């Protein structure tokens, strides 16, 4: 890879377009969000350009901290469950015939093409009392009468995990498919049974990959605001739901911006801590 800097100013010309796009669509909106979070709300979507800390004072309350905790609780649970499902799945996929791999990857991509609200309503139907799986369980004699599982925490987690798994698989698959297959064979000739090889060689070898994928799903899930409203009860609503509520229903843009900044900062802190921790572990 060529890492030398351009010799003169004309060398930077190819960077102009991406730089402009980045500034226009990333730096400017993000900067204005931070700025607006310090403005005074006038109601009805209007705000006065007076810098103050009222929005941040209001947000440090048990209610919003509770929402933050709920957000991270949901995100951690979803990330953990997704990894537990996606990692063995990707591992089996990599070791299956080429044609099987193609079919599954196309299936994963097609899930990505579905909108979040369609997936949410589909799950709420699947888990409903009138048309859901409980009717099947009754038919099989496992239940006395149909039950409703949505809305509820289980339904919420199921829905978000369903949207997160394709992302996890698409991150894990290329990494796992590049691993030298002889490493597992070496483990076997050294006395490890195939199942044990998975747990004491394959998993530890991919620790960094797993952490990265975990973080990606964590951040991805923190931003979900439709699923909690479709599949969750109000006590499962996350900070993202509060942000959309403040911005769209209450028309309190400055406070919504303050909540978003708050979420971004806490997320960065957590991701930063994990990355730092991982680096220290590697160094030791």
């Amino acid at each position: 890879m060529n890492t030398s800097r351009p010799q003169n100013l004309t060398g930077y010309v190819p960077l102009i377009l991406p730089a402009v796009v980045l500034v226009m669509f990333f730096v400017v909106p993000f900067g204005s969000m931070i700025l607006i979070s310090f403005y005074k709300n006038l109601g009805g979507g209007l705000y006065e350009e007076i810098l103050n800390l009222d929005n941040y004072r209001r947000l440090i309350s048990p209610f919003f901290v509770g929402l933050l905790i709920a957000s991270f609780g949901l995100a951690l649970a979803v990330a953990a469950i997704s990894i537990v499902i996606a990692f063995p799945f990707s591992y089996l996929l990599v070791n299956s015939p080429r044609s099987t791999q193609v079919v599954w990857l196309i299936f994963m991509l097609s899930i990505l093409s579905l909108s979040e609200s369609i997936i949410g309503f589909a799950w709420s139907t699947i888990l409903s009392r009138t048309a859901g799986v409980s009717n099947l369980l009754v038919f099989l004699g496992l239940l006395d009468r149909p039950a409703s599982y949505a809305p509820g925490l289980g339904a919420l987690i199921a829905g978000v995990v369903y949207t997160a798994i394709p992302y996890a698989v698409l991150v894990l698959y290329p990494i796992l498919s590049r691993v030298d297959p002889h490493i597992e064979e070496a483990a076997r000739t050294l006395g490890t049974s195939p199942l044990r090889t998975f747990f004491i060689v394959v998993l530890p070898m991919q620790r960094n990959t797993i952490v990265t994928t975990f973080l990606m799903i964590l951040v991805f899930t923190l931003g979900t605001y439709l699923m909690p409203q479709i599949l969750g009860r109000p006590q499962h609503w996350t900070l993202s739901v509060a942000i959309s509520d403040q911005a769209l229903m209450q028309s309190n843009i400055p406070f919504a911006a303050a909540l978003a900044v708050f979420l971004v900062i806490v997320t960065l802190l957590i991701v930063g801590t994990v990355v730092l921790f991982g680096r220290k572990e590697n160094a030791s």
Partner: protein
Amino acid sequence: MSGLAIHQLNKAYGPVNALSNISLSVANGQFVCLLGPSGCGKSTLLRIIAGLEATTSGKVLLDGKDITEVPAHLRDFGMVFQSLALFPHLTVGENIAYPLRIRGASKEVQDREVQRLLDLVHLPGVADRAITQLSGGQRQRIAIARALALKPKLFLLDEPMSALDAKLREAMQVEVKRLQQELGITTFLVTHDQREAMTTADLVVVMSGGVIQQIAPPVEIYRSPANAFVADFIGVANLIEGDAKAGGRVVVPGGQVLIDGVAAGGKVNFSVRPEDLTLQSAAGDSTVAGTVAFIRHLGSSLEVNVSVPGLAKDLIVVMSPREHLPFDLGDTVNVHVPGSACVVLR
């Protein structure tokens, strides 16, 4: 009997036969080279011995016990892979100690064994390094040390030296051979490099097309190849076809060769090594006439190609570089073919 024996082993992938009717018996402590071109089945045979590949039919016996169905992780053989397959997330010491650790050896035993094995492969003091901090040759030694950690009954090497540069490869071949002699461990080395086989092996198994062509000690493989394939694959061979006449006279394109014991009548194929041939100006009773087509000085030897009308390939003659060559390109020469050096091929 003690040692490894393979009985009428076959391996098929769908309609393709990777190995056909392989039978082989190796006494304990021998160094065996499975030699052949790529795709000849030598790696498959090694993987079957390791238990990584199932057989279609046939048996693998170790010290008289049938181990055909024993899974790889219960065979306790040490194997070194072409890619080395070191565990990237473990240090050098942890890699070597791996087979001991998973069997529940104490930390002290592990450390002591790591020391012993690193000394054995002449790399002391690298136990705490990461695999990525080692050079290719050093990784090789670590892979060998890891495979030997269990004091295995069989030591299996699947072309581990092929990725090294020529000098390092030669040095490693000598080292592997020394190590094997020191430990007296039965060893199987897969290679397509005949020099490697000649350097290391007590017994060479030449394979082609999933079939064993010849099993013999290296010198015998070179001096008396069993067939044209072996003659051609091992070193450089001049393959000549002629008509056998009375008195051991074989009429070939460009002249005749006297080979004792050849029965008159019919075609005879024989092979003769380049270093056994000499050039002379006059025709003799066992010479072939041709023209000098190419001369090259290789430093340690002088090689002359002689084009003979009626022979598909030039005859190759190798002589000492100190010899004066009284011929030039295009000159007519007679190649003396000593009958005693000719190997009649079936």
